[in-house]
Structures are given as structure tokens and as C-alpha cells.
């Protein structure tokens, strides 16, 4: 009986810790503020192409791919298709070191064979709002670089209420 009670108590304790009830949970407002004002991987990212024109300075051109990395370790991608966004894939991510993380795809819209797959990615914060990512292409056996820039908090006056 005592063993059963102890087991039940331990289970409740684990459940409380897992749910974050034992510590003060951030409010919804605090949660979204920390995501929006993040200086880490957390946030809303837009993919860019970095180029070096033959004459002049290097440039970054934004393209219509977005990656949203939420505070609860979930993520999803959005793609611009003909002026409207569609959802690319969704899943979760986990930091594995200060320069690597894994992306676990729950459902991939374009390529269902990637459902349930897990990719290791390398990253480096170039500055607070720019990340250099690399994912491993298992077909070509090499790391493919990507540049992502943080979607800024601003807005032209009068366009939105």
C-alpha cells in the first residue's frame, strides 16, 4: 500500500513539474513578447538569398519562405505561392548544442515521405536578426547553407488598423 501511495505521489510530482505548474508560468502576453523580441532562434524568420554581384557589395534578397519557431519548441513553415501563403511542413525542434538543433517533421505537405523524419541542422547567429543555417542533404552527402532573416516588428502607417 505504501509503495502504491509513494508511486502515486511521485507520478503527481512528475506531472506537476512537466506541466510547469510548480513555477510561475508566463502570461500569454509575456510569452508572445519574448518570441517577438527574441534575439535567439525563437521567432518568425524569412529566408533570403545571399549573393555577391560581379561589381559592388554583397546583397541579401528576401524570398517567400517563412519558418516560425515557437517558444513551445514547435515549428512550421509557410511558402508564398502566387501571392498567398501555404503551409509547407510542421513539427517540432530541439536544441542539441549552441550551434545545432534537430527538426522533427510531423507532416510535410510536399513530400509525405518526410513525415516523421528528423534532420540535424547547424546554425550560427550572424547577428540578432540573421541566421546562417545548414542542413544535411543525404542524397548529395553535403551540408546545404541557407540564410534566414528575422521578420521585423514594424509597419507602414495606415495599412492596418
Amino acid at each position, binding site marked *: 500500500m505504501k509503495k502504491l501511495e509513494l508511486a502515486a505521489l511521485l507520478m503527481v510530482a512528475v506531472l506537476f513539474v512537466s*506541466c510547469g505548474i510548480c513555477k510561475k508560468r508566463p502570461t500569454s502576453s509575456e510569452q508572445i513578447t519574448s518570441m517577438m523580441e527574441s534575439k535567439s532562434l525563437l521567432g518568425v524568420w*524569412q529566408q533570403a538569398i545571399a549573393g555577391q554581384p560581379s561589381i559592388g557589395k554583397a546583397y541579401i534578397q*528576401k524570398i517567400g519562405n517563412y519558418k516560425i519557431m515557437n517558444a513551445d519548441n*514547435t515549428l512550421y513553415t509557410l511558402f508564398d*505561392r502566387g501571392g498567398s501563403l*501555404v503551409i509547407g511542413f510542421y513539427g517540432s525542434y530541439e536544441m542539441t548544442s549552441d550551434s545545432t538543433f534537430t527538426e522533427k517533421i510531423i507532416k510535410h505537405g*510536399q513530400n509525405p515521405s518526410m513525415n516523421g523524419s528528423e534532420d540535424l541542422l547547424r546554425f550560427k547567429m550572424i547577428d540578432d536578426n540573421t541566421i546562417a543555417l545548414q542542413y544535411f542533404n543525404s542524397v548529395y552527402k553535403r551540408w546545404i547553407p541557407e540564410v534566414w532573416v528575422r521578420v521585423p516588428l514594424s509597419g507602414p502607417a495606415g495599412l492596418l*488598423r
Partner: protein
Amino acid sequence: MKKSILTVALMVVTCMAFAQKDLVESKSLIGIWQQAQVNKISDGQSKIIKTPIYKVLNADKTFYCFLINNNELNTNISHFGSYEITSDSTFTESVTRHYTSPSMDNSVSQMRFKLLDENTLLMQYYNDANKVWVPEVWLRVTPRKPVTNIN
């Protein structure tokens, strides 16, 4: 005991996966929405035109809006905050920061909503200045097969 801990851990991971599924495969107010305009054309017909304005209503009761300048693909987050569903046809939006209209920082807006179908949302917000409810139409952003891949 190990089995119990594993069960609890599995529950937590499952909850996380479902939270994401809630957003992406939701059939309720939760979801990623694109604003649309309904333009009346001749013979009583109307035409829906999508705008580059998006609203993300997360399962954790947070939200944000962003706008894409389609010419240069410049994207801005215009405002963010939290929301609370107050009935089956109303909710409140508490704006934490509003970058387009800073006077709306820390403001609360009363909203009415009606799901016309799973992917079409009719929303109304109250315009205090003009003392009228202003209608908006939003279309759900859904998973679709992209043409090309980035990853």
C-alpha cells in the same frame, strides 16, 4: 515506476504535438488566417480578393499579425498580443505592442466572429471613433503541396 514516468513523458510530448496540430489543422478560430476583401461586381455577384495581411491565432491564446509587401517580399509584424474567447461568437484581442498604430499599445478590442465554414471567418471589430462594427473576412491558410522545396 519507470513505466509511469515514461507514460507521463509520452503524455507531455503528445500534448506538444497536438498543440501544433491544433494550429495547422484547426477547424476553429485557432489558425493562420489571410485577410480577404469581398468586392461586389455586377448582377449581385461578388468576388473575393486575397490581401497580403495575415493573422496567426495560436492555441496558447497568443496572436500576431503580419503584412507582406508583395512587390519586394518585405514582411513586417504589425502587432501582437493575446486573445480570450468570451463566447461562441465573441472574443477580445489584447494588443501588447502595435507598431502601425502605437496608440493601440496595451489596448483591448472587442471582436465578434462567425465561421462561415471551416476555412472562412467573418470577423467584426468595434471602431470606437465611428461607433460602428467593421466587418472583415479571413481565409484559413491551409497545408498545400508546394511547387518547390527548400529543405
